[in-house]
């Protein structure tokens, strides 16, 4: 396993521990940030949509182990969101200082909607609730804030070791 992969695994473990411990105490208006979703979006921004999708799938699968929703729901949501944001930013967005919170917030909105829609179709009808719109919006704002810290962290982890690269980049 290359150093880059070790660093990326470290990112997943760190954010997973923070999400399941610290941030469960930092709930604001019923919402917590999706740290691994923001990390997947950061990965897509840094290394391309496919790398983001793979990272999102792995990160989502990890967080799914701690949720009561079906295993694979967050994995699918994170992967699709990261892929979508990766494709979108590749064609449109240029590097600015506000790129991290913008992509974090957009990722939060898209990820939240996908989670509710796919989860609802998968049999969790209670996810279709008006209150969840508020949760998605607050969570997206939270995601935008934490993106300031997560984007540099992922960039550090995803820097390519000499002679190696992710597929699809």
């Amino acid at each position, binding site marked *: 396993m290359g150093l880059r992969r070790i660093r990326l695994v470290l990112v997943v473990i760190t954010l997973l521990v923070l999400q*399941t411990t610290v941030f469960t105490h930092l709930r604001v208006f019923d919402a917590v940030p999706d740290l691994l979703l923001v990390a997947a979006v950061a990965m897509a921004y840094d290394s391309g949509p496919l790398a983001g999708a793979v990272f999102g799938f792995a990160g989502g699968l990890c967080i799914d182990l701690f949720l009561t929703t079906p295993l694979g729901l967050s994995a699918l949501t994170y992967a699709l969101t990261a892929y979508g944001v990766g494709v979108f930013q590749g064609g449109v967005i240029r590097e600015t200082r506000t790129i991290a919170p913008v992509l974090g917030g957009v990722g939060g909105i898209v990820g939240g909607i996908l989670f509710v829609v796919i989860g609802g179709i998968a049999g969790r009808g209670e996810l279709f609730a008006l209150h969840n719109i508020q949760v998605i919006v607050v969570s997206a704002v939270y995601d935008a804030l934490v993106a300031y810290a997560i984007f540099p962290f992922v960039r550090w982890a995803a820097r390519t070791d000499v002679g190696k690269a992710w597929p699809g980049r």
Partner: protein
Amino acid sequence: MAVYRRDTRSRFLLPVIIVSSLLLITIDSGNGSGAVASLRSTAHNIISPVQSVVNDAFQPLRDVAGGITTYGSLKQQNDNLRRQISDLRGQLRQTRGVGNELPELEKLLDLPTVQDATGIVARVTAGAPGNFERTVTIDKGSSQGLRVGYPVVTGDGLVGTITQVAGQSATVTLLDSPSLGVGVRLTTSNTEGITVSKAGARDLTIGFLSDSNVLAQKGELVLTAASANEAFPPDIVVGTVVAYAKAAQDLAPTITVAPAVNLDDLDFVKVLRFPDPTAAPRGG
């Protein structure tokens, strides 16, 4: 050739991820899988010691924050509680006479009671890590004999039920989670129903009423129902009626219930071993 192979692999990567995710969702949405439960259990076992440490670290901060935000209302709350204690003493005296007959009647009906269930005290170590669920994590698990489906209470009343168990921790789905319905009865009329919750709402409504013409009064106690094969022992306090409404065109009234337990501020809970795995089968 190398470039071709990599491109082909990349092209199929996203569909593979999507199909794998959908397969996992399908497997886990069905009857559940032992492998998935085992994976979840292992993950919880790894993280639960860290959750305990973080919970300890956050406790003083929560206490300070709670003290600052509630200081103004504490005196008023204290006066109210004194009044309530006085009222309750009177009610207790009234109820004592009726209450003496209850154990005998329950014995005759062969219904399990809350006294039949032994309890395990557990500490709440974390809330839900996700945005769309109402759960807490406790620091006791299958190693202490907990099982999925065991009811969870505090001194005030019902908290919820255990929905996932790991070796040293368990996930409790709270009473006001939209995914949980509890069989309840109104104390005055004995009308039974099932609690219904909406995402974001802390109050519950009672649906599927056994008597659609029932009248309920504000302040009336709502207890868990006393039926055979219930998931909860009978007569655990669920909450009190805070609103009753029935329009002319309604088939049944809308009865709103405020949970007896403050589900946003849980420190210690008691898990009831119910039904007791060591108890002899009933009805024989």
